């Protein structure tokens, strides 16, 4: 915990949880009778409740967006670069709410939770949830917290889709909407990458049709492979060349069993196994399917501008120049649709070699832009 006590960090934070026993009617037609949402908040809610900001997480994210969980914590939350006192999403001004979505594996009800009807982990029986369902649960969380309006809803990637969904589903609930490195719906190529990841998981014998928890196993190999594919697509070719080049681990091509020869192999394997150790396979499948299924334009027969017509928020759309998984052209699609339907929108394509991960990383232009835009959210 290098800088938990530094001025720019929210410091030690504690996750909270909220239990909901009002049934949730999912888009799939299934019903969740009850569920728990784990969330974190940063900053203080003003007496007039005007400064609440919702942060929506992406595929592998969770509620822990900023700060540290303990003094011993080595790494801060996933968006600590963005959220904190004096940071672009300034916790001196805003009350930031960051939930873990249902279907997740970090405390909110998901496939690894115990189902109250069977007394066993949900596993394969956990229903497919969608971006729309998440927005419903986030709205209920807001009401639970006494919030009836978001100064802004902000998200990147899959989180950006949730922000978009908020803007059209509950327009009067938000005055600002920030959508980073997202898309109005995935391309065929993007769905294909998700399918490769899922097939990697399904082909692991330990997968057991999603009910691995019953036999106390984990499809680690499949998960690691899924993550390797995913992680690769979040980086840019240039960044990988810069970071790894053709560097060898031991200086030569030793024909040494299964040992990685190149640094990049070693890196990917490490990323894969780290992820397999912390993330649930069913959650990964559910999250990727939620990504695949989101399609805003489809609601207006392919006319995205019309699909966005109900939105009243002011938008900030940001893409990252080297992001090929959620390419800048997709953000421009959103921007152009917003312009065509007469919305207020600001769009920037941040010059970056970080690929899709760009939205999570520190970048001076990106930070300056979001900081500048957040001024209007505060006023």
């Amino acid at each position, binding site marked *: 915990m290098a800088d938990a006590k530094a001025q720019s960090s929210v410091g030690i934070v504690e996750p909270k949880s909220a239990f909901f026993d009002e049934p949730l009617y999912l888009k799939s037609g299934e019903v969740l009778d009850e569920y728990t949402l784990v969330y974190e908040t940063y900053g203080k809610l003003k007496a007039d409740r005007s400064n609440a900001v919702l942060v929506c997480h992406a595929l592998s994210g969770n509620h822990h967006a900023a700060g540290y969980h303990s003094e011993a914590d080595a790494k801060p939350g996933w968006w600590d670069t963005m959220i904190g006192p004096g940071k672009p999403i300034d916790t001196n001004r805003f009350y930031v709410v960051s939930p873990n979505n249902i279907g997740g594996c970090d405390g909110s009800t998901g496939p690894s939770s115990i189902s109250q009807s069977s007394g066993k982990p949900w596993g394969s029986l956990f229903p497919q949830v969608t971006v729309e369902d998440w927005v419903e649960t986030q709205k209920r969380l807001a009401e639970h917290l006494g919030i009836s309006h978001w100064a802004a809803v902000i998200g990147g990637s899959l989180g950006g889709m949730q922000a978009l969904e908020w803007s059209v589903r509950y327009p009067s609930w938000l005055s600002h909407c920030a959508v980073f490195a997202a898309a109005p719906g995935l391309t065929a190529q993007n769905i294909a990458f998700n399918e490769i990841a899922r097939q990697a998981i399904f082909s692991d014998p330990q997968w057991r049709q999603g009910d691995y928890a019953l036999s106390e196993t984990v499809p680690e190999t499949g998960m690691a492979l899924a993550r390797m594919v995913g992680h690769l697509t979040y980086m840019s070719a240039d960044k990988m060349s810069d970071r790894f080049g053709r560097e060898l681990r031991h200086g030569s091509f030793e024909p040494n069993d299964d040992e990685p020869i190149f640094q990049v192999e070693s890196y990917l394997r490490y990323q894969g196994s780290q992820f397999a150790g912390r993330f649930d396979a069913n959650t990964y499948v559910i999250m990727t399917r939620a990504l695949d299924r989101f399609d805003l334009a489809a609601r207006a027969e392919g006319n995205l501008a019309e699909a966005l017509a109900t939105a009243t928020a*002011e938008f900030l759309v940001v893409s990252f120049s080297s992001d090929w998984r959620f390419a800048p052209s997709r953000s*421009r699609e959103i*921007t*152009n649709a917003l*312009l*065509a339907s007469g919305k*207020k*929108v*600001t*769009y*920037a*394509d*941040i*010059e970056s070699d970080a690929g899709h991960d760009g939205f999570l990383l520190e970048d001076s*232009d990106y930070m*300056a*832009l979001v900081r*500048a*835009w957040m*001024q*209007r959210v505060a006023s």
Partner: protein
Amino acid sequence: MLRGDIDTILDWVKQGSRVLDLGCGDGELLAALTEQKAVSGLGLDIDAQNLIAAVDRGLCVVQQNMEDGLFNFNRKSVDVVIIAFSLQVLTRPHNVLDRVVDIGNEAIVSFPNFGHWRSRLSLLLSGRMPKTKALPYSWFDTPNIHFCTVADFEQLCDQLQIDIIERKTSENGHILAKLWPNLFAKSASYRIKRA
């Protein structure tokens, strides 16, 4: 202020108009229009630092090259398109002009007049490309790749079937600039529309 066009544009734009400011820079003009004329404005610029500065002013801006065709803007979707002192940086200014008079009910274009007597005299006497306080760049390192004169611009409008509604030169009060703008106006502003 080195530029004489800002007051003219502020004067021309009607209260509450929908404005598209192409090459809005740091948003100075658009911010003034928002404040004084309550326009609903959108700025376009390609430079990240300009964009951040404009966002900091509270403006809506889109990072986009105006030479890519502006196809994301529908015909007659705004009241006025502004190209203030950025015509001369365009690779193909005629294409942009031809497009903006379709996007806006009218367009306002301002530019430094390269036909001004100082520019002419400077070239005549020194035999070198003129540098001025307002345009201090060397010829090989300037964003201003397409200078024109008042006469050039008017001829281009004629060629593109664009009507000039109104012209105002930077020294409008000056009798010489009024009589011979091509020689005595440092800059010129035009209200134009599709003929």
